[in-house]
């Protein structure tokens, strides 16, 4: 309870806080130059990947500082470092001006840093009070729990920051927004002065987002500092006082939200120094490879995640799906792959109705699949490269003969992929996790291009790979397209989408809201179409 002293001095009751708050705001502005947290040259490496490289970040006290970046850009690793869950290989963390070294989250909490996780960590069957004190229970006489004291303190914090929390309600009766406030209260209870919020809006509906932002503004008014991690640019622009962009593991810019637009931020996030994904002449034929009509995917609560999507992809055509992440792209892909149950009018591949086919049959029938998360869905990280060559193609030549695995066939074909696709590896017996992200991805691309696929589903095919591998993967996609492959391309990289696609569709809240001609669109226009603004397209 040593961290709670500040509360005792700042527990103004809500009715009379207006004036005090304004005063607090003035103080906050006055002290804004003083950094609450400073990260200097943070580098963190994992086998095969550099998660963070030379991160430089200065978070002013009493501000909402947003950190934006694509998935896999290194935001989460950075926050884990700041919260003591990972130790940096190089660099220095300073809190309130003094260097700190965190070994565990407990050290971070002791230094006044609290983390609100994206996925709530609350016990449903306990009350708010019990959840909040769990792990730092106030004691009386050494053993007895002092719930009275805890309840008083929770009320005090809740009132001081206008969180409106009732301590004795079971958590299972609370909605998502309330649960999040309980999570925030939990870290405040432990004395946090600096709050890290990891994608806090991912689980909220729009009006809950507004409430959260009001709460956050209240917190900084009281002098707290907030680190807000997100990839939703419009939200970040609304709430943040300062924005730092992370790309490919490093901080590329810190900007004032007043000076930037969402487009400008997106450019910073994605980067524009990439090699051009531009394709030359059209190779689109008249033969439809994949035809989708009225495909819908529903969440368990009946809400449509993908809502009546229809499209055709012809042989030699790349169809790009643009959209802010989380608008149904992943679900659409999984539905086409037969991984996720869906309602669909018609789903035909090369004229055959595949709606009732299993995933394996769809793969055998000629769908290649580059999954969005290669570590989870695309590879067996602890298995050798040649075993990974078999994955997803375990019933096809040259990997198997009848019920038997054809080791010799799989191994020699893996050597072919390693050579043709320039997978940099000491050999085909090394485990997949030993390879860098780019080489892992080249192996996957080579695997999925094997066996003459009719359709390739490429989900973020160059995410998290280095520039060289990116150019190589684009080359392979172009070559295959020229040879008559139909490609469904999902990407968050607008240049990649515009450059590679023959036609583009924009997915918003699960529905296709716009058809865009990639020949006549700029990333800026596409970006606004993705957020539903739609002007200029």
């Amino acid at each position: 309870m040593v961290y709670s002293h500040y509360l005792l001095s700042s527990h103004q009751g809500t009715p009379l806080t207006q004036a005090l708050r304004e005063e607090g705001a003035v103080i906050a502005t006055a002290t804004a130059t003083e950094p609450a947290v400073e990260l200097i040259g943070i580098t963190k490496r994992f086998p095969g990947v550099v998660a963070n490289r030379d991160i430089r970040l200065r978070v002013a006290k009493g501000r909402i500082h947003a950190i934006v970046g694509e998935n896999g850009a290194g935001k989460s690793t950075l926050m884990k470092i700041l919260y003591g869950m990972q130790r940096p290989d190089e660099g220095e963390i300073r809190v309130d001006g003094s260097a700190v070294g965190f070994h565990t989250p407990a050290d971070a909490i002791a230094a006044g840093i609290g983390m609100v996780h994206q996925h709530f960590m609350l016990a449903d069957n306990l009350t708010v009070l019990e959840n909040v004190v769990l792990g730092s229970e106030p004691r009386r006489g050494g053993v007895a729990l002092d719930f009275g004291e805890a309840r008083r303190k929770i009320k005090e914090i809740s009132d001081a920051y206008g969180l409106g929390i009732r301590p004795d309600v079971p958590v299972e009766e609370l909605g998502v927004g309330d649960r999040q406030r309980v999570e925030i209260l939990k870290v405040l209870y432990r004395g946090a002065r600096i709050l890290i919020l990891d994608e806090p809006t991912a689980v909220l509906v729009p009006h809950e987002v507004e409430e959260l932002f009001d709460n956050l503004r209240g917190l900084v008014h009281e002098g707290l500092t907030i680190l807000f991690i997100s990839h939703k640019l419009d939200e970040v622009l609304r709430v943040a006082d300062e924005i730092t962009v992370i790309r490919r593991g490093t901080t590329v810019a810190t900007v004032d939200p007043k000076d930037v637009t969402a487009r400008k931020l997106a450019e910073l996030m994605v980067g524009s120094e990439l090699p051009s994904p531009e394709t030359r002449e059209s190779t689109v034929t008249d033969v439809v490879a994949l035809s989708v009509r009225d495909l819908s995917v529903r969440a368990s609560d009946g809400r449509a995640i993908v809502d009546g999507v229809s499209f055709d992809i012809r042989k030699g055509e790349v169809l790009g799906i643009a959209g802010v992440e989380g608008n149904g792209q992943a679900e659409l892909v999984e539905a086409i792959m037969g991984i996720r149950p869906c309602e669909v009018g018609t789903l035909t591949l090369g004229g055959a109705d595949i709606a009732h086919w299993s995933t394996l049959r769809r793969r055998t029938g000629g769908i290649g699949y580059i999954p969005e998360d290669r570590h989870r869905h695309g590879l067996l990280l602890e298995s050798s490269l040649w075993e990974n060559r078999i994955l997803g193609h375990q019933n096809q030549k040259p990997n198997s003969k009848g019920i038997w695995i054809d080791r010799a066939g799989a191994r020699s074909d893996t050597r072919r992929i390693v050579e043709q696709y320039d997978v940099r590896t000491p050999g085909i017996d090394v485990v997949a996790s030993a390879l860098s992200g780019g080489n892992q991805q080249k192996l996957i691309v080579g695997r999925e291009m094997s066996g003459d696929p009719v359709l390739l589903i490429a989900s973020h095919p160059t995410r998290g790979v280095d520039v060289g591998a990116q150019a190589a993967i684009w080359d392979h996609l172009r070559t295959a397209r020229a040879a008559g492959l139909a490609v469904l391309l999902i990407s968050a990289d607008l240049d990649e989408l515009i450059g590679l696609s023959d036609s583009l569709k924009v997915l918003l809240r699960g529905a296709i809201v716009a058809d865009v001609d990639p020949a006549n669109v700029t990333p800026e226009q596409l970006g606004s179409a993705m957020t539903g603004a739609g002007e200029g397209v």
Partner: protein
Amino acid sequence: MTERDHGTGAGMGTFLDRMLGRVRLGGWLAVAAPVIAIAFAALITSVVLLVAGKAPLEAFNALAQYGTRPPTMVLILNTAVGYYISALAVAIGFRMNLFNIGVDGQYRLAAVVAASFGGAALLPGVLNIIAVVVVAMAVGALWAAIAGLLKVTRGVSEVISTIMLNAIATGLGSWLISDHFGVLTGNDIATRPIPDDAHVPGMPLIAGTAQLVNGFLVLAVVLGVAYYVLLNRTRFGFELRATGQSEPAAVASGVGVKKMVVVTMIMSGAVAGLIGMPELLGQSFKYSNNFPAGLGFTGIAIALLGRNNPVGMAIGALLWSFLDNSSNTLQLLDISKEIVAIMQGVIILSVIIAYELVHRYRNVAEQRRVSRQLAAPPGPPGPAGPSAPPAPEGARA
């Protein structure tokens, strides 16, 4: 979509993966871990013996002396056969992340039914042997299938259901014997003995003793080879291992995970059904209250010890059997034979810890190596200036 951490996921399986041998350890490390663990277990046991005022060296010497006598060696081999088959049954599930804790109930129920079937002598000679074995496998498979079906249809954890099915199997077995298949001889109730023509003969493998090695040793070896071939050379084995390593990757690759769960449970149960066969067809020829119990749990320990590797589990089964069978001799030295149970427990714990330590050592070494390599070239791969990048050249006019 949630933000996934590509960094930490790289190259590190879960603790469970490592414990169950789904993560491979390279070369000498795979051997070093169990050797360290056994040495450590011997050390702990020595300390316990010293505290109790006994001489550790004398005790180990007695164990070794007794264990290398030909009659004991036969005994060790015979016991190890059952242990090994049990470990295989457990390992099939482990490789796919399925915890078949119910091997114990599966083999006992299988033995009761198979013993009754054999005792009825419906078929002559070798045919009866084959029929008994098939019945045992079928009963074990069916009993395990219940847990598999509950898991895929109702989401019941196989750990819970198999533990409960163990208790039910005990009750069911007792009821079958007392009310249906049992014959009372004196005070002892047992199934009708299997006729002489359906006994599996022993083999005079060990010189210096008239005692015979159980003929099911051959079956155990065949099963070990079959286990290896199935897992490493067949499509089914590939899909099973893929599911065990990463279920999302298996699903994306078109593996029918639900079907795999049921089939794997059935296979595990069928092998479990064989555990009682060496005893039934080569030793006691009937199921009575003296029929060995608890082999299913020993199998779990041995599967952990051998990391589900067919050779590793064979060594584990022999070690376990050696400790179990030579412990009696300690009583001659006035040492409680339970010291062996302590040693077995410490071996399991230290094996798990040793594998974990070895794995971490390897990981850290790998991380350092990568760090050094990546740190070596100066300039990072991409431009990383804090200034805004040039305007996109995306529009291709």
